[in-house]
């Protein structure tokens, strides 16, 4: 078995115990990338030279006792919307082709302080807009469980890379489900933390009020350890929250006795695939068997979450993406006459279709005369959704729900019907609108052989409850490696 089949924490322990070195771990990761990535295309940038150099330094640091944490020397892959100083950061867009940031994102800096070795940057939907990783300018990523299927998105590259063992763990970002949904599709675990827990400084914004960076890994333990490393109060991010409970690994306790789990009926109705429903309800029973208390309840308003989300996210995106204009960095059209044409051509050629669709949608809903009818109404809906969750969390510790209506769809199936694709975000986006933490973890395999994920949602700042419940459930089953690794594909 490869070092890459270990969890991040297991590998970290071996490195601390001097059984293997950080350099050996990095070399194995690159071996695996070479073996797998031509088929899967999880990566946009692979920085072998830089990573090996860094691994040597980290190893020195470990030997001197400078790096003592569980992630020291453990190889990681970053979603390509996280700024890395001097290393190309593209957001999977032509418009940021060859863009090298002048600074490193705060969350990545935190990882570096924990001794992480960055292998490179993972593929994603362009500017994180999409649910399949098919809108990337650099081409699609394939699902390591079945190459004809999508890995989900937008953090599809990160999740597929973890599943295919090209890295020990990865960072993703979640604006409407972009960590949780591809984690479910790829059979790995991912956490979307409470808004404000991980600094957004250096995360190239899609929708500022919804974006959060989070971990993707093989299990709950890794996710807790990574979250512990990346979460911090950052004065550079005005929306960052000062918390007292960054010790997320202390919640890795096998105990759900008396834990009140709410099951929103609205999430299990029409549109949910029968196998997925069955698998999640089965998981609920398992938790009940461990002492949790289940109760069904109505979480209405959810049907309004999708329109509210697409209005708010597109509005913010239309403004956030205005800076990509060919003036300062990134792509500029070759021939133009005058400023106006330079803007127009650079942006027309630089952005892909889905990004343009959302910029136009966002510009429209913010236009004078439409602002009140769309944007303001969406903000009010957002507030109502938050209230609905507040009421639910008065009664429940966690909410158990599906992550997506189905398992991973086939390539090209989703993009031809954007509305259908937007609707598939139904179970994940409410958490972003309400700022809640959510965890997605595997709970079964469907008849097509694709992994099924389940989702646990918690009240704001209640990651520990999620981690405890997810950990307890995870201990009842064994981690299933993707088929690509078993040589089946």
């Amino acid at each position, binding site marked *: 078995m490869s070092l890459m089949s270990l969890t991040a924490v297991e590998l970290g322990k071996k490195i601390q115990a001097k059984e293997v070195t950080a350099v050996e771990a990095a070399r194995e990761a690159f071996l695996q990338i070479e073996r797998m990535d031509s088929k899967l295309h999880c990566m946009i940038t692979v920085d072998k030279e830089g990573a090996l150099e860094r691994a040597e330094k980290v190893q020195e640091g470990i030997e001197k006792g400078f790096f003592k944490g569980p992630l020291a020397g453990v190889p990681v892959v970053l979603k390509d919307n996280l700024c890395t100083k001097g290393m190309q950061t593209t957001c999977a867009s032509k418009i940021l082709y060859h863009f090298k940031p002048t600074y490193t994102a705060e969350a990545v800096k935190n990882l570096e302080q924990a001794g992480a070795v960055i292998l490179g940057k993972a593929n994603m939907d362009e500017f994180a807009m999409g649910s399949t990783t098919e809108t990337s300018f650099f081409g699609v990523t394939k699902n390591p469980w079945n190459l004809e299927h999508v890995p989900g998105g937008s953090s599809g590259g990160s999740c597929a890379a973890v599943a295919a063992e090209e890295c020990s763990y990865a960072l993703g970002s979640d604006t409407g489900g972009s960590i949780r949904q591809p984690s479910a599709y790829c059979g790995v675990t991912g956490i979307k933390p409470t808004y404000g827990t991980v600094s957004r400084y250096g995360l190239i914004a899609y929708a500022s009020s919804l974006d959060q960076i989070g971990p993707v890994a093989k299990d709950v333990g890794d996710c807790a350890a990574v979250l512990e490393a990346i979460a911090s109060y950052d004065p550079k991010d005005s929306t960052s929250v000062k918390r007292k409970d960054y010790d997320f690994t202390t919640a890795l306790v096998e105990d759900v006795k008396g834990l009140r789990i709410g099951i929103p009926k609205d999430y299990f109705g029409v549109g949910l695939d029968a196998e997925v429903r069955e698998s999640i309800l089965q998981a609920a029973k398992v938790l009940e068997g461990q002492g949790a208390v289940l109760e069904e309840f109505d979480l209405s308003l959810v049907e309004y979450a999708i329109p509210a989300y697409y209005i708010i996210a597109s509005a*913010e995106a239309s403004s956030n993406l205005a800076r990509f204009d060919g003036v*300062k960095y990134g792509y500029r059209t070759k021939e133009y006459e005058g400023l106006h044409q330079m803007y127009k051509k650079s942006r027309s050629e630089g952005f892909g279709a889905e990004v343009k669709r959302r910029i136009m949608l966002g510009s429209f809903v913010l236009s004078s005369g439409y602002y009140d009818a769309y944007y303001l109404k969406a903000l009010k809906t957002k507030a109502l959704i938050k209230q609905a969750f507040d009421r639910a969390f008065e009664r429940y510790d966690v909410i158990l729900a599906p992550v997506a209506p189905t398992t991973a769809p086939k390539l090209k199936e989703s993009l031809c019907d954007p509305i259908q694709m937007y609707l598939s975000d139904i179970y994940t986006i409410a958490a972003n609108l309400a700022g809640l933490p959510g965890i997605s973890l595997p709970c079964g395999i469907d008849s097509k052989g694709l992994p099924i994920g389940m989702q646990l949602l918690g009240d704001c700042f209640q990651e520990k409850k999620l981690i405890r419940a997810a950990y307890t459930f995870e201990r009842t089953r064994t981690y299933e490696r993707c088929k690509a690794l078993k040589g089946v594909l």
Partner: protein
Amino acid sequence: MSRQYETVIGLEVHVELATKTKIFCACSTEFGGAPNTHTCPVCTGMPGALPVLNRQVVEYAIAVGLATNCTINQCCKFDRKNYFYPDNPQNYQISQLYEPICRDGYVEIDTPSGTKKIGIHEIHMEEDAGKLMHDEWEDCSLVDFNRSGVPLIEIVSEPDMRDAKEVIAYLDKLRLIIQYLGASDCKLQEGSMRADVNLSVRETGSTRLGTRTEMKNLNSFKAITRAIEGERERQIELLEMGKAVVQETRRWDDNKESSYAMRSKEDAQDYRYFPEPDLVPVWISDEWLAQIRARQPELRTQKLIRYKKEFDIPDYDAQIITSAKKMADLFEATTAICKKPKKVSNWLMVETMRLMKEHEMEAEELTFSPKHLAELIELTDKGAINSSVAKEVFEKIFLEDIDPLQYVEEHGLKTVHDESVLRTVVEKVIEENPQSVADYRGGKEKAMGFLVGQTMKAMKGKANPAAVNQMLKELLMVGI
């Protein structure tokens, strides 16, 4: 002209705040660095960079709001104003539309018909843009982001002004208040204070507002006055010809003394304002507000009252001295040392003003120290130097802030009080000017002036003219 017209004017005044760092990052606001040296990922609009509000900006905005009788919005918010231009690195400006920090204030101005209130609609905080430079040689444009993110407040008045004099009085009042608060130096020429004029005309007696135009690029009080008069005439001419005024933005060209249309309302951009998601609302607690209120410096109106009471100087003096914060500061500091308010006031009002005019300086540019002026006053009072020497020394203080004691000593300017020395010189002058002596004795009083002058000249100015006069009279009498 048969009909009578009334001009209605409202102002949008941008003021650059005197913070050390920018509004949303820690970069310096200092003027004049090499291009793009006072920049960081935030003020150059790098992907992923986030703004963090400078607390001092809020405090200055509140201070100005309190001094202009505004209601402070204790939960104000920022919004994004979206528009594309290369000097604007994010292609949106962070400003305030929906919840500005101050609302509903006023300032009072003096008009020929008495005191008048000019309403302030709102004051909001925002960031400045960078600067574009066009390279003729390379045929390209370059952008310098050093000014990008410099904090501004925009003070929006109600349409309460009726002529250029009121506009200037209003601007003068605002400038003085803001200078007194230390929130900005408010220099029109350098752009730290900029005023856009919204103007419309209507028939006298009408209560409906006419269609207004907005005038930009007004860099001096003179330009503002000329632009207002020009625009009033232009609009009246249109109406007289039966044409309509078009709502548009116009640019004033002070060299040509005329304006031209920049863009009409139809071309007006839709800025697609929405709440800035990267910043949280600014909560201004009662405590914070009270602290700022307690720190408010004394403004001009209060100073005027105190000066009369505490220093017993004439109203005229107080008016002039308080017309610039720097002048008032100099007055108070000098008086604190020498305890002679009227003398200090005289030096400031006469010699200081004269030299400022001669050197085309603003009060803010004065650099001499109160200590040196106080010492000069002491020297004069003790009779150590006479008034003409004092003026000469003051010019040195004004220009180079020299130490008067040392200067007088080094240049031997002290008045000679030794009577025997003076007597010798006077005797010599009498001896050498028999004609004048004869004239004086013949009843020509003018001759005395000449003799005093000759004596002063012989003494190289270091004599006390009164003593010279006395001595001359004495000796000429003896001669009879």
